[in-house]
């Protein structure tokens, strides 16, 4: 009996440890809860750097539409790639994206964040308008979140606009520049992504 209770307790604890908190499905509350959770994790001094990154990665994997972002970012060249190459790209992109996201969130984790309003653009897209409150060393920053709401019970983040400038579009144009300068050789993009992941 004691063994069974131990096993049950272990299973419950293990699940709490690995699964992330389910956020509200209303896009505005979803972003508020998610950012609070991520910034709380990143500014928690009792958690190691590796654990912080792991937790933020879990949050991102469950709440960011990484597959759609990866395809959007690759641009029209994605239509010419075979399935294996595309799969390899998406795997690399996921690693690149998670590392970059954690780094960006860490940079702003000490700033106060506030969700202002939301604007439903279509059945599938809602823009959540928020801001990073200004500090003596950093003026206020407007951040808009493009939230994909095709499944109304599971909103997913697709883009961030900092002062109206899209991070996804910037990334897409970075990739496009690398491809254009290298005769659309996808392997050059792969090595750039690998280099970023390693460093």
């Amino acid at each position: 009996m004691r063994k069974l209770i131990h096993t049950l307790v272990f299973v419950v604890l293990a699940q709490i440890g690995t699964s992330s908190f389910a956020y509200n499905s209303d896009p505005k509350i979803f972003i508020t809860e998610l950012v609070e959770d991520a910034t709380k994790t990143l500014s928690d001094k009792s958690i190691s750097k590796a654990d912080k990154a792991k937790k933020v990665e879990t949050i991102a994997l469950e709440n960011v539409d990484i597959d759609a972002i990866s395809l959007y970012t690759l641009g029209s060249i994605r239509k010419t790639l075979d399935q294996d190459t595309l799969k390899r790209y998406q795997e690399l992109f996921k690693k690149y994206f998670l590392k970059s996201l954690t780094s960006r969130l860490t940079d702003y984790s000490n700033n106060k964040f506030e969700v202002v309003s939301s604007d439903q653009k279509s059945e599938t897209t809602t823009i959540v308008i928020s801001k990073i409150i200004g500090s003596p060393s950093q003026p206020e920053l407007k951040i808009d979140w493009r939230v994909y709401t095709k499944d109304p019970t599971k909103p997913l983040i697709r883009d961030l606009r900092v002062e109206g400038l899209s991070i996804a579009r910037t990334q897409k144009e970075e990739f496009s520049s690398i491809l254009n300068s290298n005769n659309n050789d996808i392997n050059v993009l792969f090595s750039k992504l690998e280099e970023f992941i390693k460093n």
Partner: protein
Amino acid sequence: MLLKKIIFTLLAGFILFASNVSAEPKKECFEKISRGIFKFNQGFDKAILKPIASGYNKLPEPIREGTGNFTSNLATLLTIPNHVLQGEWRLAGESSASFLINSTIGILGFSNPASKMGLRNQPEDVGQTLGAYGVSSGCYFVLPVLGPTTIRDSVGMFADTLVDPFAHITLREKEILSISGSEMDFFSVKGAGVVDFRADNMKNLDSLEKNSIDMYAAIKSLYIQNREKKIGNTYSSKDDDWEEFNK
């Protein structure tokens, strides 16, 4: 008079040439050279601009805020004629009222009471006016120290000095309402504006550099998006490309 005519003809010719070069702002004029200049600018930033901006960030907040307000207020002198040229009469009125209030009640523009009164002061320049007239951006390139631009915006940058009353009294040392200045005043104010901008964006640029796999292309994208947004007088740049992922 003749000189003005020549300049005007040259400008018009240059803009027409620019429009024909490319209607696509993502096209480069001479990418290899621009990338070289970009590297030089990064070196200039690391060695000179960034350290000055870091020092500036250590100054008391009222001094930094005052400097930012002062340079923005003087930039309103360029904004007003551009609102007029774009037929934005209401915005021209708001900017004029903002300039008058900040220059008087706001003690030469060091304070910004106009914004507390709800008066908008959205910066405009000749490049934006040309864009609003439908002049395409032409190709993209990078200028030493001055940074990213397009053919239209570089023509606009030159034309700014012809339209801007502040440039008229400083760069050209002419008098308006018995007010005069020198070239030094012009470059000091512009320089202070650049330092203030760099200081405000310390964290943003550091984060961008750390997370970019091609910083040159990232800056180019942000520059183009920002210009699109300003020319369209919209809050954000275009992003229609997402449509095909909404199915």
